[in-house]
C-alpha cells in the first residue's frame, strides 16, 4: 500500500470502518461495553442501603427461584444521608446551665480551660499551664 508520494503506510492508518462495517460495529460495541465495565469497576464501595435488589440466579441452576415481587416493590429507597449509621456521630452540644457528668480528667481540663478564659498576665498563663500539665499527668 502506497501513498501518492510512494511512501508505504501501515494498514492500521486506515480506519476499520473502511474495511468492514460488521467489524466496525463489533469494535464499537466492545469498546462501549469495555468502557461501561471500567466505569463500574471504578465505583467506590458504599455502605449497605435498602431497596430493590437485582436478582442473581446462578448460571446452571436448573430451578431458579426468581422473586418477581421485587419488580412491584414500591418502597422508597433512602439516600445514604438518611441512614444514621452512615453518618459520623456528632457530639451533642451542651446548653448553658445544663449539668454534665464528667470524668476527673475532664473536670480538670474544664477547670483549666475556664481559668484560661480569665488569664491576663504572663504569670497567670504559666501558672495555668503548670496546673494543666499536673492535672493531665497526675494519673499517669
Amino acid at each position, binding site marked *: 500500500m502506497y501513498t501518492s508520494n510512494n511512501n508505504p503506510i501501515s494498514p492500521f492508518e486506515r480506519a476499520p*470502518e473502511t474495511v468492514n*462495517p*460488521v*467489524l*466496525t*460495529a*463489533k469494535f*464499537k*460495541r*466492545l469498546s*462501549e*461495553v*469495555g*468502557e*461501561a*465495565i471500567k*466505569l*463500574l*469497576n*471504578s*465505583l*467506590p*464501595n*458504599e*455502605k*449497605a*442501603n*435498602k*431497596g*430493590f*435488589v*437485582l*436478582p*442473581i*440466579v*446462578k*448460571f446452571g*441452576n*436448573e430451578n*431458579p427461584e*426468581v422473586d*418477581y415481587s421485587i*419488580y*412491584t416493590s414500591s418502597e*422508597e*429507597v433512602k*439516600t*445514604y444521608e438518611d441512614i444514621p449509621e452512615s453518618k459520623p456521630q456528632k457530639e451533642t452540644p451542651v446548653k448553658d446551665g445544663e449539668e454534665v457528668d464528667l470524668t476527673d480528667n475532664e473536670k480538670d481540663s474544664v477547670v483549666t480551660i475556664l481559668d484560661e478564659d480569665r488569664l491576663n498576665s504572663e504569670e497567670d498563663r504559666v501558672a495555668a499551664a503548670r496546673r494543666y500539665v499536673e492535672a493531665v499527668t497526675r494519673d499517669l
Partner: protein
Amino acid sequence: MIQKIFKTILGNNKAEREAELYRDLIRHEAKIGGELFGPIPKGGRREFFCLDKRTWVWHEEWTDENGQQHSKTTRYDVRPNAIFKAQDGSHYKPVSEQEAKHLKEAALLYEKRIRTKIYNHIN
C-alpha cells in the same frame, strides 16, 4: 451534482447500515444477557444489556397466576460515585451496595458471554 447525490446516498446507506448492525448486536447481546440469570420461565421474556457506557437495562415480562401479562423495565445509570436506577420511567433512586455488586457481577459475566457467543465469531 449527480455525483454529490450519489455520494450522499451511499454515505447515508453506510451510516444506516452500521447503525442497524450496531442495534442488531445490542439485540443479540440482550438475549444473551437475559440468560445470565438462569432459564426464563415459560411465557416470559428477559433481557439484560449494556445500552451505552453508563447505562444498563433490565427488561422482564412475565405472566402472573391469573394469566395477566406484566412487564418491567429498569435502567441503571452508572455515575462516577454511585449507581442510580429508574423503573418504568420513574425517578432515579440510588441502589444498595448489594444490588451494585450484583450488577457488577452480571456485567462482568455479560462481557465474557458476549465475547464468547458473538464477537469471537466475527473476524
